[in-house]
């Protein structure tokens, strides 16, 4: 990030230059952008309030009559604002964002390895899905049952995550983050299974 205002050269400009009021290029980090501490637990109401307030300040509509350069920064800033709001308001996406920032990216797909404790469940589900294809109606109840179990697991994970989020925020303990990553991977795997049951 530039340390001087692009327009008048004043030092240490914030979102807008204190001297000439010109819009500055936005910071890329979502937490920095929203002026929020980089925490995993976050007040959704406060975030939304910030989102609306910043929209009123930064939206391209407001910069329609400004210079080309300010129009570009407005577009950039609003993109970061909207992208950031989408990510930060969702606890799971927010956690993945923090992991990525800490170099613990779990990637788009997550792991493809079946968690060992789910091996049997996954095997049974695949069987049932196969039977469904051949018109076995009994398999349907089996699949619905599986879905209920998976949804239960997700809820359980979310509860654990909440505790871990608070733990990370309190001490930024790297081990906690690794634990969170493990849970997020497991969660991702389970939500994929739920999706499979929905296609049936």
């Amino acid at each position: 990030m530039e340390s001087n205002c692009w327009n008048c050269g004043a030092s240490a400009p914030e979102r807008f230059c204190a001297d000439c009021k010109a819009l500055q290029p936005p910071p890329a980090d979502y937490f920095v952008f929203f002026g929020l501490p980089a925490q995993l637990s976050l007040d959704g109401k406060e975030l939304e309030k910030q989102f609306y307030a910043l929209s009123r300040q930064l939206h391209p509509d407001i910069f329609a009559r400004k210079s080309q350069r300010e129009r570009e920064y407005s577009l950039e800033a609003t993109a970061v604002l909207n992208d950031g709001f989408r990510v930060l308001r969702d606890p799971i996406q927010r956690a993945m964002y923090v992991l990525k920032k800490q170099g613990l990216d779990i990637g788009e797909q997550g792991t493809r390895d079946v968690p060992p404790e789910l091996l049997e469940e996954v095997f049974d589900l695949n069987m049932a899905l196969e039977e469904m294809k051949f018109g076995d109606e009994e398999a349907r109840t089996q699949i619905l049952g599986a879905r209920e179990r998976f949804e239960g697991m997700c809820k359980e994970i979310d509860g654990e995550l909440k505790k871990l989020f608070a733990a990370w925020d309190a001490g930024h303990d790297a081990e906690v983050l690794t634990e969170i990553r493990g849970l997020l991977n497991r969660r991702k795997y389970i939500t994929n299974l739920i999706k499979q049951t929905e296609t049936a």
Partner: protein
Amino acid sequence: MSQMFQIEFDNVPEERIVGIDLGTTNSLVAHMTLGSPRVLEGHDGKIVPSVVSLGDNGGFIIGNAARQELIDHPERSIYSVKRLMGRGVDDVQEELKLFPFRIAEGSESVIQVMLGDRKMTPPEISALILRQLKLNAEEALGGPVTRAVITVPAYFNDAQRQATRDAGRIAGLEVLRLVNEPTAAALAYGLDKRKEGIVAVYDMGGGTFDISILKLHDGIFEVLATNGDTHLGGDDIDNLLIRIALEDVQSEWGEDISHVGEAVQTLRQAVIRAKEELSFVPVTSIEFAWHGKSYKRELTRELFENLIRGIVDRTLGPCRDCMKDAGVTPEQIDEVVLVGGSTRIPLVRSAVEVLFRAKPHTELNPDEVVALGAAVQAGILAGTVENQLLLDVTPLSLGIETYGGVVTKIIHRNSTIPASASETFTTAVDGQSNVLIHVLQGERELVKDNRSLARFDLKGIAPMPAGFARIEVRFLIDANGILNVMARDARTGNEQSVEVKPSYGLTDEQVEAMIEASIDHAEEDLNARQAAEARVDADTILIALERAKKNAAYGELSEEERQAISAAVIQLQAVYNSTDHLLIREKVEALNQATMSLAEAQMNTAVRSALKGTHIDAER
């Protein structure tokens, strides 16, 4: 006091940014005047039918006048061209069965339509409609109009939006913003007076259907979700009725007229009349006469509703999906707004009422509400409307092709725009200097089931072993819903060149060429008109002179004077058919001078009057 004055003064210099509803059937232009939006009128009313016809002299006829041409010269007229915007030949096979578009041979990714023997792309045809609206606005506002906000169906994809923006450019308009039609309608209703609430906008126009659900928050109109069908509208109802009438005619007359363009056009107007009447009366008839034969069929509202129920029901699925995506139940919806002429149909209104469990707003004219909203948005951009802000979403997910013909979504549908995503690409082969990225729009898993947007060629990558290059590509959907792509070499930070190959649409060069061509034509058109006006003046004086020659006063002229007049006449006749209006006017003026002495010398007021073009008998 001076403070008050200051505020008022700030609001007075209204920029002439207009709002345009470029509709499938009708188009309108509106402007924010002294704090409220109004539709601007042309010579023949507010509505410019979206019809274009190529005239005998090679000029274009647009709007109301073109509607008659649609019947007289269907082979060189076109309507509903919006259906072709941003689409390829493969996309429109269904429309071709129902609409008399004459697609030029060799059309592929950009359709070319035949108007007579002239080949034109849909953006060029739309540009003619826009130019008419621009002219109407310039006359109404008393000055040049060069900037506009244009509305598009919310469910328009990138190619359709680009085509609309291209049309604006070709028409000589800087398109400051493309606004989604349902969102514009919400703006027009000024629903911001309600501080908080959820609003559904149901928009059924001539050719497209859109549903949007918005959350109001202190002047912010935040779209939560949008859905729709770009192939569903009032035209479908017309086509249904036409099909039935054609079958009747076939059995009654023993004649198949479904391929006779003029007959089908006449019939289309007849069924539209019947359809519109049924919104007000319980029974009407479709009446149609052709080459001495006539057809009449009674149509009750009940039968009509049974016929169109399927079409109306097709709008309900997108509405339910939209509520699901927005995370709202029908009970949570506070207000419903109806947009588009088709929402005048009582069955549509009752279906909407049942679905959303709320009585829809109908205070504003559904034909005008979108243009009015576009004018409000223009006012926001001009700075004359304050404290209102529109936060819209992208209707379709954006993805890139990955290994095995699968699409990886990078920006999900219903994301607030502007929205962006970054991806890093590398090379697969040693020394590879290009990487091709295929970008798609749609919700499906496989490439073949989505809409190809464009291929972006990252060019001039420095030779490196495979996998070493790191090109960071940023995909950004702007506030118009249009994709912008930027790339940089992540190692050096240098900008990386990207060549865009749009899958369906004009390249920048093609648009530039069309702008050039339209300016050329504009000059041609202007020249032709000025020459024609000069000829009218020439006729006036020549006729007056012929009359004056019969007057006794002419005989009293000297030989030189008569010769001077004859010489001036010959010179005028010699340039009469010239395209140079200045030359014609010069000779008209010369003849005027030559006859002046005649008039003055004789002091004959009758001759004078005759030379001015007044009827000579009246003076006696």
